């Protein structure tokens, strides 16, 4: 008997099973995480049905059904399973104070999905669920009743959105440009002042420029006011399910939907539109509503800058360690140190980045090149460049290690073959060894990108903000503004999920942001992998 057990153990079957189980468990966990994020994140875009309930006390509740659970400690002899309750998103924060509400199941007398209720997405206060009583222009009623009002409202909302776009364009592009130029001129004047020029013709010219710009500015502000007044022209009187009224300016409404009246394809269309608007729009309402475009942009750009910084740096270091340095105790110690660097908590790098890049390097740059802007720091404060550099520092060990592995995998025959043809060591490295080590280098890049996209802590010290006024890339020369602060998906998750005033309402946004962060990581990684495969194919035998 024990013989058979021994045989079984020796055969390795048990070991194979153990290995398989470990793999399966890992896959299950990864899959579970992704599934959870997908379900919660992707569901967010779907136009949910609105349920209207009548309760035993005669009041009504209208909202999106969000879940059902057993009331804790509610088990009684009649209900051995316990009573249940449902959670509803009832919106109307301005009226109710809270977006969510629990309703005990046994309180509900009837529930229905009326086709005539609408969900209004507003620029403030979250959603409103209810019906329309009347639409008016100023004091005059244009349409009354739910049906008439709905028809009248749709084109008005469209027009209001167009107006909003126009206002936004005016504010951000036109007035933003003027402000930018005024600031630039101010700095020029200050610069001349620092050089001791105060009354020269040059200064006067700049002064005149400023005055011209300010006149233009005032004109545009006038236009802006006119547009805003137009937005306030129409208003709509809404009623919530219990009859309480609420007057809303149409300009406040982003969109109005009747989800119970929509077909599957209409919902599908709406789903993709919602998805797209989250990807492409700017956040609203303390980041809990609207889109996350600036955060996606900031994340990608930061990773790109980091890659550009980390690869040459890491590759040069690895080349030195592997090809030039004498392999001895010192190199071994350096190698161990580099490996351990990868294990240092990331916040430590953040502190270093703040102290070294931001204060020391940035401060010096400000003193030398931007004295006219002081005391407002230009580079002497957190910015996308410093954040990227900090992450580059954090990921450089990975690049060094994989480049070294790539280098050591280059066969000795290639080196000798190249030298035997009269190449110097440098020429051999450039023309034979580097191309052969490229897959290793790119593997390092892949690992670095994966690590850098997920890192948040060091960024909080070196340049990430909750809401950045401008993207680090725009049409003002020199286009890339490395000194600007930026938004980041990882930080966005933290901010929306844990720092926002209305955590419950922000929860879907957390999942959506997480989902998109995961997608960004995957896309960035896949592009690096594709790059590596392309390079590898270039150096492998072509299929003949």
């Amino acid at each position, binding site marked *: 008997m024990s013989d058979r057990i021994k045989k079984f153990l020796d055969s390795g079957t048990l070991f194979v099973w153990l290995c398989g189980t470990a793999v399966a468990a890992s896959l299950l966990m990864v899959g579970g995480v992704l599934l959870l994020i997908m379900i919660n994140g992707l569901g967010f875009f779907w136009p949910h049905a609105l349920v209207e309930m009548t309760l035993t006390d005669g009041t009504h509740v209208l909202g999106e059904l969000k879940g059902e659970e057993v009331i804790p400690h509610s088990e009684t002899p009649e209900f051995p399973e316990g009573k249940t309750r449902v959670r509803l998103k009832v919106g109307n924060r301005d009226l109710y104070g809270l977006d969510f509400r629990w309703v005990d199941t046994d309180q509900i007398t009837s529930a229905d999905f009326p086709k005539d209720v609408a969900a209004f997405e507003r620029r403030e206060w979250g959603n409103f669920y209810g019906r329309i009583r009347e639409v008016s222009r100023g004091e005059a009623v244009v349409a009354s009743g739910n049906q008439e009002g709905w028809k009248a409202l749709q084109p008005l909302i469209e027009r209001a959105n167009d107006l909003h776009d126009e206002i936004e364009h005016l504010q951000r592009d036109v007035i933003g440009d003027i402000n930018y130029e005024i600031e630039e001129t101010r700095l020029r004047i200050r610069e001349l002042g620092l050089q001791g020029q105060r009354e020269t013709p040059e200064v006067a010219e700049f002064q005149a420029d400023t005055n011209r710009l300010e006149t233009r500015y005032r004109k545009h502000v006038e236009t802006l006011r006119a547009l805003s007044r137009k937005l306030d022209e129409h208003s709509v009187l809404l009623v919530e399910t219990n009859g309480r009224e609420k007057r809303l300016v149409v300009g406040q409404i982003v969109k109005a939907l009747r989800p119970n009246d929509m077909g599957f394809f209409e919902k599908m269309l709406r789903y993709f539109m919602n998805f797209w608007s989250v990807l492409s729009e700017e956040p609203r309402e303390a980041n809990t509503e609207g889109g996350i475009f600036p955060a996606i942009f900031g994340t990608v750009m930061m990773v790109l800058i980091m890659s550009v910084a980390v690869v040459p740096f890491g590759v040069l270091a690895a080349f030195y360690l592997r090809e030039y340095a004498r392999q001895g105790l010192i190199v071994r110690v350096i190698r161990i140190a580099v490996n351990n660097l990868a294990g240092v908590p990331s916040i430590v790098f953040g502190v270093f980045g703040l102290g070294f890049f931001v204060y020391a390097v940035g401060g010096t740059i400000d003193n030398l090149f931007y004295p006219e802007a002081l005391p407002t720091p230009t580079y002497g404060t957190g910015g996308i460049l410093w954040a990227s550099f900090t992450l580059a520092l954090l990921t450089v060990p990975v690049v060094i290690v994989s480049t070294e592995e790539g280098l050591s995998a280059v066969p000795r025959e290639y080196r000798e*073959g190249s*030298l*035997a*043809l009269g190449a110097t060591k440098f020429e051999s490295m450039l023309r034979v060894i580097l191309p052969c080590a490229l897959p290793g280098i790119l593997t390092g890049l892949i690992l670095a990108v994966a690590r850098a996209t997920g890192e948040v802590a060091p960024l909080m010290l070196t340049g990430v903000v909750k809401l950045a006024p401008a993207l680090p890339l725009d049409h003002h020369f020199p286009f890339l503004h490395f000194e600007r602060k930026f938004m980041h998906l990882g930080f966005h998750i933290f901010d929306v999920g844990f720092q926002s005033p209305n955590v419950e309402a922000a929860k879907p946004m957390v999942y959506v942001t997480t989902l998109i962060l995961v997608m960004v990581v995957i896309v960035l990684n896949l592009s690096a992998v594709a790059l590596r495969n392309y390079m590898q194919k270039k150096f*492998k035998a*072509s*299929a003949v």
Partner: protein
Amino acid sequence: MASSERSQDNNSKITVEETNFFYGEKQALFNVALTVPTHQVTAFIGPSGCGKSTLLRCFNRLNDLVEGARLIGRICLDGKDIYDPSVDVTDLRTRVGMVFQKVNPFPKSIYQNVVYGPQLQGIRRRSVLDGIVEKSLQGAGLWEEVKDRLHHSALSLSGGQQQRLCIARALAVNPEVLLMDEPCSALDPISTAKIEELLHSLKEQLTVVIVTHNMQQAARISDLTGFFLMGELIEYAATKTIFTNPSDSRTEDYVTGRFG
């Protein structure tokens, strides 16, 4: 005996004078002295680890790469000491080409492999390079087989073709000496025959030194043969002499297959 007589006269290409070679503490060559004549094929034979490769790699100073390697003695190419500090090593290596035991075309196209050396010398003109590629590949007997796919990867060739590509690559820089360290040990008999044939024609242009483990091969292709044992040059004479009438009994034992 004609060959050994010739090696005494001015036709000597490489002269090795009382050379000792060390890998750190370990001595690999003991008082080796020999002369390699011009336009001849010289073969080095001997059991594994006897120092044949070491001596060969001394001729193009590839041993410089080995940490702790040290040479005491004198090796001259055309009468000039190649270990003299004034010698430009890269220049020496273009004069003394090498083909390795392990087939090592670079993971680039056939064309790029051949022009690698010439490009290092600063030749950039496309027409010149094209000419070099054709001539070198013809010299290595590979032109007809690859002329239609010069821009395919060198790694898509067969083992024998790859080795001939390595020869073409070495020929492309117009070397005066070609060192071959067991060039056929990884190849099939047909490829081996092709390379042996090649050696006969190469002899016209340059001097060949070849290391081989194959007695018949040495007998077939070489004019002179040196027999090494434990880092010592036991006997060095015309190939016919070595194989038919060796003066040292250890040589006789080795070539007749009684040991090694």
